[in-house]
């Protein structure tokens, strides 16, 4: 270029010599924040992580990412009350991402295509006893097995599944799905002993020479309440009714069924009764709908199916062909108070769904172990007062849902593993929560939640076919793509595009970006235009 005229002609791109980074007072930084869905998942799933894979149709990868935390996606996709969706930031935009239905799709896809879990790398040579083959026990067994331990499950019942089988009706939890997912867990080499109730914990430990144990016995004992009843009155408890559905002989409830209680079990029983041919299924609950512990979606489905609910009512006595209920009223403290006003309801049977307790008899004589109002006390590491004995699920103080139970199983497994190896398991510290305010939602295309197909009413009332269907592939992918990727870069190239100084370096697929501080003037456009709030501006120290 020497021959070119001086100064008035310049060589291309030579301004690289001018490092405008020195102008900067604020510096952009990439961050990874905790998405509210992950934050809210009792099973500690990396929901955003597997949605990201599902978005591009990498379903097996997504499923594997999912099952790193939860071995029962097909079950979860049906029975989980998905707090993740309640927390989802997208709800503030249009409607929450249908995480649960995508999870179910992945679960079903895995069963359809027969994806298997990868077997553990090497054996630790340790034996662990898991008591109870419910969600919590199965989850713990799964994780322990994958960590290389030999696991034996002892289940009192005839079949594995616990509450998933004996507490949740078919129309919500088809048994073939349940069986398949349990089988896939056991295929990891786990020994399952059914009808093998543990009467004495310590003996059991000794017999099997187990190095540690995880107690995950479900709450199968129905709570009773004294209700004066006529000699011919037919009074049953919800647990045995639902259990009976798994036997050859379903309980005889008659044509007019009253269910007493306000939990999910009450609703399950009422809906079951309807399907068993009851013309009238009435739930009697002493408080209001707002106070009702049963999950709203289930109450909704029940009402759709013609279940009646008597709010603010208690049962005084059960007569031969009827029951007497008393109207209640809420006092200023919101407590239900009797009014003395009574009413007769015709009834062929009364089912009590007043909650369940765990049978803790197996723990008698175990030193150091502490029981407070019906549940076992455990530490942060889920170990009971007795070294080597851990507990979870219905046995410990917590919300009693399948998902919580699965979560307990995972945590316990990690602590047990650490304990067996003479270490302590320290859960990873949680990132700052990714809030809606940090998002730039302009960049997301408008996309309302997709609706899962629903079984038509007639068959809902007459059969035990599954009520809610699954999403087809394209819909599931679409639903996954509604994810906003809150707080974590999804490589949308916005920062790379909007930088007026080309100071963002794109590192390539999966590699994210780098900021070239030689040229970044700190204008903040990258932060302002980052859709998912994965960039923050920090002051330059001078």
């Amino acid at each position, binding site marked *: *270029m020497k*021959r*070119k*005229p*001086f*100064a*008035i*002609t*310049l*060589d291309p791109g030579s301004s690289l010599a001018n490092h405008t980074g020195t102008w900067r007072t604020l510096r952009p930084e990439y961050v990874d924040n905790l998405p509210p869905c992950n934050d809210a998942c009792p099973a500690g799933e990396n929901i955003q992580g597997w949605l990201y894979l599902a978005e591009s149709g990498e379903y097996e990868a997504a499923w594997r990412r999912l099952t790193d935390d939860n071995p029962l996606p097909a079950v979860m996709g049906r029975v989980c009350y998905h707090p993740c969706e309640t927390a989802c930031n997208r709800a503030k935009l249009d409607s929450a991402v249908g995480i649960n239905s995508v999870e179910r799709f992945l679960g079903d896809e895995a069963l359809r295509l027969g994806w298997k879990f990868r077997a553990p790398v090497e054996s630790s040579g340790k034996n662990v006893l898991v008591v109870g083959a419910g969600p919590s026990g199965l989850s713990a067994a799964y994780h322990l097995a994958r960590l290389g331990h030999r696991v034996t499950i002892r289940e009192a019942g005839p079949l594995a599944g616990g509450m998933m089988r004996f507490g949740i009706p078919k129309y919500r939890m088809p048994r073939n799905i349940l069986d398949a997912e349990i089988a896939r867990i056991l295929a990891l080499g786990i020994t399952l002993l059914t009808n093998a109730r543990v009467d004495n914990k310590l003996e059991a430990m000794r017999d099997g020479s187990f190095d540690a144990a995880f107690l995950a016995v479900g709450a199968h004992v129905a709570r009773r309440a004294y209700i004066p009843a006529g000699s011919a009155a037919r009074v049953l408890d919800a647990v045995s009714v639902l259990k009976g559905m798994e036997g050859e002989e379903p309980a005889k409830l008659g044509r007019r069924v009253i269910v007493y209680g306000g939990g999910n079990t009450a609703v399950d029983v009422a809906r079951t009764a309807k399907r068993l041919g009851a013309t009238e299924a009435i739930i009697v609950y002493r408080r209001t709908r707002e106070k009702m512990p049963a999950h709203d979606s289930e109450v909704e489905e029940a009402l759709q199916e013609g279940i009646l609910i008597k709010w603010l009512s208690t049962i005084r006595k059960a007569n031969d062909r009827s029951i007497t209920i008393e109207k209640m009223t809420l006092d200023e403290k919101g407590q239900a108070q009797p009014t003395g006003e009574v009413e007769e309801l015709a009834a062929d049977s009364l089912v009590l769904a007043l909650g369940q307790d765990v049978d803790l008899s197996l723990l008698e004589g175990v030193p150091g172990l502490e029981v407070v109002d019906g549940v076992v006390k455990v530490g942060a590491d889920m170990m009971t007062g007795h070294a080597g004995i851990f507990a979870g699920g219905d046995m410990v103080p917590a919300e009693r849902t399948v998902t919580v139970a699965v979560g307990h199983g995972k945590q316990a497994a990690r602590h047990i593993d650490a304990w067996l190896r003479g270490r302590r398991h320290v859960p990873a510290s949680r990132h700052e929560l990714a809030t809606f305010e940090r998002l730039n939602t302009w960049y997301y295309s408008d996309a309302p939640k997709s609706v899962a197909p629903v079984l038509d009413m007639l068959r809902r009332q007459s059969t035990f076919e599954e009520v809610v269907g699954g999403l087809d592939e394209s819909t599931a992918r679409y639903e996954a793509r509604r994810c906003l990727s809150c707080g974590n870069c999804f490589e949308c190239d916005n920062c790379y595009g909007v930088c007026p100084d080309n100071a963002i370096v794109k590192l390539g697929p999966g590699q994210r970006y780098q900021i070239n501080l030689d040229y970044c003037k700190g204008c903040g456009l990258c932060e302002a235009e980052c859709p998912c709030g994965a960039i923050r501006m920090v002051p330059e120290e001078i």
Partner: protein
Amino acid sequence: MLKQVEGSQAVAEAVALCRPEVICAYPISPQTHIVEALGRMVTAGQLAPCEFINVESEFAAMSVAIGASAAGARAYTATASQGLLYMAEAVFNAAGLGLPIVMTIANRAIGAPINIWNDHTDALSQRDCGWIQLFAEDNQEAVDLHIQAFRLGEELSLPVMVCMDGYILTHAFERLELPRQEQVDAYLPRFEPRQVLDPAEPLSIGAMVGPEAFMEVRYLAHAKQQQALELIPAWAEEFHRAFGRETGGLLHLYRADDAETIVVALGSVLGTVKDTVDELRETGLRIGVLGLTCFRPWPHLAVRAALADVRRVVVIEKSLAVGLGGIVSANVRGSYTGHPDHVHAVIAGLGGRPITKRALHGVLRKAAEGELEPLTFLDLNRQAVERVLTREREVRRSGPIAESVLRDLGVSALKIG
């Protein structure tokens, strides 16, 4: 080949022989015949490949030429008078960017009052813009200078103005020799730009230059013009060998050997001056002529040498630096080693006023007798001027000057001579 042809037509044909690739045309008298003729040649396909562009103003004409030249095309345009002023910003820019555009100036006065006739005010108003400025004495030289201009400009990467007197030359029919294409092709090589906009080798042209380098850029422009002072005579000599004509160069001397008085002038008036000088010589006056072909760069050394032993210099110039006097004479004084008072400025022919031999006889004789003022206005109508000045002294609202002069002269019908 020999031709009896109008000056504009001849120049158009000469430009065509130089194979310009982009020609910008905007009409203004007396330049129009040139671009009209070129337009005809382009449409007739005699001049191809060539883009003939009708622009919306002289400013655009020069700007289009700038773009074309920067993209490596040989660019040409022509203008005059107000047109040159209207493109002035782009004229400076072309020089600053070092783009070898060639432009014909059909010299014409500048208003107000509006005047379409010939003088040199337009070209001289741009004397400091960085262009090379060549003045043609007759149409033969106009033809030859254009051919030399393209070569000169492209070698130095500088734009060149070829100035020819409006009407007097542009509209005059006379005998001249038009070179053959192969002659011109042999003399004028293909345009090899020093800088060109090319995607294959990107660069930025026209960057902003601050105090740290601006002086240097200006100096280099000056240095280039100094180089031109060597190239111009050298290539005029080469032209002479190739075409057999002594045209171009820095300046021409006529009967100057033993002269005590030298008349300096540029442009077509030189012919009348030479005739006059011949007649004066017959009366025994030792007088000669210095004809300036190159006004920018100013041929300082050549002029100084030519005037070294001269008693007095009379500069006949067709422009007036209002408030100073002569422009050419001011430049001549700088190169005259004798006493500055012996350089006489004679402002003549403004706005097309004919410069007659009679008038020249008068003023030159007076000069020879040592009675010529430092600044003279040839054939100035004293009475008319005095009348206006008196009126202005007497009346506040004395009205527009131009109109009152005309009224006083009673000029309505056409005046001859």
